[in-house]
C-alpha cells in the first residue's frame, strides 16, 4: 500500500505578471514530500526557491497545476480554510525571524495558540516551548529587538512549533546567524525531524543541506535534481 504524500506539487507553474513582461518562476514542477521527510531545497538566486516555499507554505496559489496537502487540493479551499491550514499544519521559520515587534518573546510564542483557541494560553504550552528551545523566563519577557539573532530564531522556532504542526518550513533559517549558532539551530531542527516533524529547508549553504535526507535542486524554475 502506497502512502499518501504529505505535500504534492502536481505540474505546478507560477507566472508573475510584471510590467516588463511575464516571468515564470516555477515551470511545470512536480514534487512529492512524504511525512517525516527532511528535504533541502537548493539553487542559485532567482531559481524559484522562494516561489516554491510560498507554494509549499500556502502563502500563494499556483497559476496552473495543483498543490495537495494531505491529499486535499488547496485551490478548492476558501481563504479561511487556507488560513486555518497554515495555522494548524505548518510552522514557518524565516531567515529574518519575522517575530511580531510589538509583542514580547513569550507573547510571540503564545500568539498562534491564541489564534487557534481564541483565548490566552492557560496550559503553559508557550512557556514549555520556550524552555525547549533554551529561552529562559527573563528573556521571554523581552521584545524581539532586545534579543540576539540566535535567541530570536529560537523564539521563532518555538512559535512555529507551539501549535504542533506536521510541517516545518524553514527559509534560510541559519542565514542571519553565525556558524556556531547556526549549528545549534540545525541540531534543533534535526531533533524535531527525529521526533516526527516533516522539515523542509531552503538554503544556499551546502553544509546546511547536508543535514537533509533529500536535496532538491532548482534552476530556472525547474527541478534539476531530486
Amino acid at each position: 500500500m502506497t502512502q499518501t504524500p504529505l505535500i504534492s506539487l502536481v505540474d505546478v507553474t507560477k507566472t508573475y505578471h510584471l510590467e516588463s513582461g511575464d516571468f515564470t518562476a516555477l515551470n511545470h514542477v512536480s514534487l512529492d514530500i512524504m511525512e517525516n521527510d527532511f528535504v533541502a531545497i537548493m539553487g542559485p538566486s532567482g531559481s524559484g526557491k522562494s516561489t516554491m516555499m510560498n507554494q509549499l507554505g500556502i502563502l500563494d496559489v499556483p497559476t496552473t497545476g495543483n498543490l495537495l496537502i494531505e491529499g486535499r487540493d488547496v485551490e478548492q479551499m476558501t481563504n479561511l480554510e487556507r488560513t486555518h491550514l497554515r495555522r494548524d499544519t505548518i510552522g514557518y521559520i524565516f531567515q529574518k525571524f519575522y517575530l511580531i515587534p510589538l509583542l514580547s518573546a513569550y507573547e510571540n510564542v503564545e500568539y498562534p495558540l491564541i489564534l487557534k483557541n481564541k483565548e490566552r494560553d492557560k496550559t503553559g504550552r508557550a512557556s514549555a516551548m520556550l524552555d525547549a528551545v533554551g529561552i529562559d523566563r527573563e528573556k521571554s519577557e523581552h521584545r524581539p529587538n532586545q534579543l540576539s539573532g540566535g535567541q530570536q530564531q529560537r523564539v521563532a522556532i518555538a512559535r512555529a512549533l507551539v501549535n504542533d504542526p506536521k510541517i516545518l518550513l524553514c527559509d534560510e533559517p541559519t542565514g542571519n546567524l553565525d556558524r556556531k549558532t547556526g549549528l545549534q539551530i540545525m541540531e534543533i531542527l534535526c531533533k524535531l525531524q527525529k521526533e516526527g516533524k516533516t522539515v523542509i529547508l531552503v538554503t544556499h549553504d551546502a553544509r546546511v543541506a547536508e543535514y537533509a535526507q533529500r536535496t532538491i535542486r532548482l534552476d530556472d524554475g525547474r527541478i534539476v535534481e531530486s
Partner: protein
Amino acid sequence: MIGDIFFQLSVRSVRLNFLRSILASIGIVIGVVAISTMGMLGTNMQLQVKDQLSSSANTIVITADAIRMGPPGSSPSSSSSSAETGIKKTQLNKIRTTVGTNGTVIPIYSSNTEFTSGNVPARGTIYGMDPSDVTEFLTIGNGTNIGSINEALVGYTLAESLDIKVGDKIKISSASSGPPDGSSSASRASVRIVGIIDTRGTVADSVSTDNGIVVSREWFVAQYGGKDIYDQVNVIVKDTDLIPEIEDAIDASLNTDEKTPSVRISDASSQLDTISSTLETLTTFVLAIGGISLLVAAVSIFNVMMMSVNERVQEIGILLSIGTETAEVRKMFMYEALILGILGAGIG
C-alpha cells in the same frame, strides 16, 4: 476586549507612534471643540434672543399697513408728517375702545434723526411718547422721567458711546434739516437729558431705545409735525392669553376692508418665529463649519491609519502567514482607529 491580543497590539502601536497618535487625536479634539462651541454659540444666541423677546411678549404692535422699505422711521427723510402712513386718531380711539381695561394703549411717534452731543454728531431713532407711558415698559436706570417739554431720555448704549450724562444737552435736527455738518445748526432744537433708559437688547415691540432718544409727544410734534398720526401703537395686555382675542378684535374693528387692510397687527410670538428661523439657519450654518473641521479630523485619522498600515505591511504579512484571519487583522486596525477617536473625543 482589553485582554484581546489584537487590542493589546493596537494599544502598543498607538504608544509606539505616540507623537503621531497624539497629533491625530488633537485633530479630533479640535473638531469636537469646534462643533460643540459653535453648537453652543448658536443655541445660546437663540436662547438669549428668546429670553429678551419674551420680556416684550405681552405687547401687541399695531402699525399702518403700507409697503415700506424697512421698519418704521428707517427712511432718512421719513417722519410721521410727511406721509399718511400712520395710525390716525380715530383708529387710536377704536383701539382704546377695543382694548378697554384689558391693557394699556401706548401711541408712539418715531423718526430717524441726526443729533449732536457736544460737537459729536450721531444718528439714532427718536421716539415721542407720553411721559406717563414711558414707565409702562421702559426702565429709567439713572435720573428721572420726562417732566417738561424740553426734557428727554437717552438709551444706555447711546449714552455710553457718546458719554452723555444726566443734565447734558443734545441738539436734535428737525426733519427738514441738512446733514449734521453744523451748517444747519440753527434748525436744531436742544433737549436736556434727564434720565438714562436701561438696556433693552432685542425686543419685539419695535421700540429699540438702546440707541435712541425718548422725548415727549409735544416736543416731537413741535419738531416734526404729524400730530395725531402715530407711527405705531403698542398695546401692553394684562393677560398674554388674551393676545389672540384682542388682536382679532382690533383686526375686526380697524381692518374693515379685507382687500386693503389699514393696519398691521403683530406680537412677540410672530417675531419670535421669524427670528428663530433665521437663527436656526445661522446655527445650522455654523454647525456645518464645525462639521467640516470634524471631517478634517476624520480624514487625519484616516491618514494616520493609512500610514500605519503602509508601515506595517511586513508585519501584516507575518500575521497572515502564521495563520491570522484577515478579519482579525482588520479588527486590530479598527481598535487602533477607535483608540485615537475615543482619546480625541474624550479630551475634546
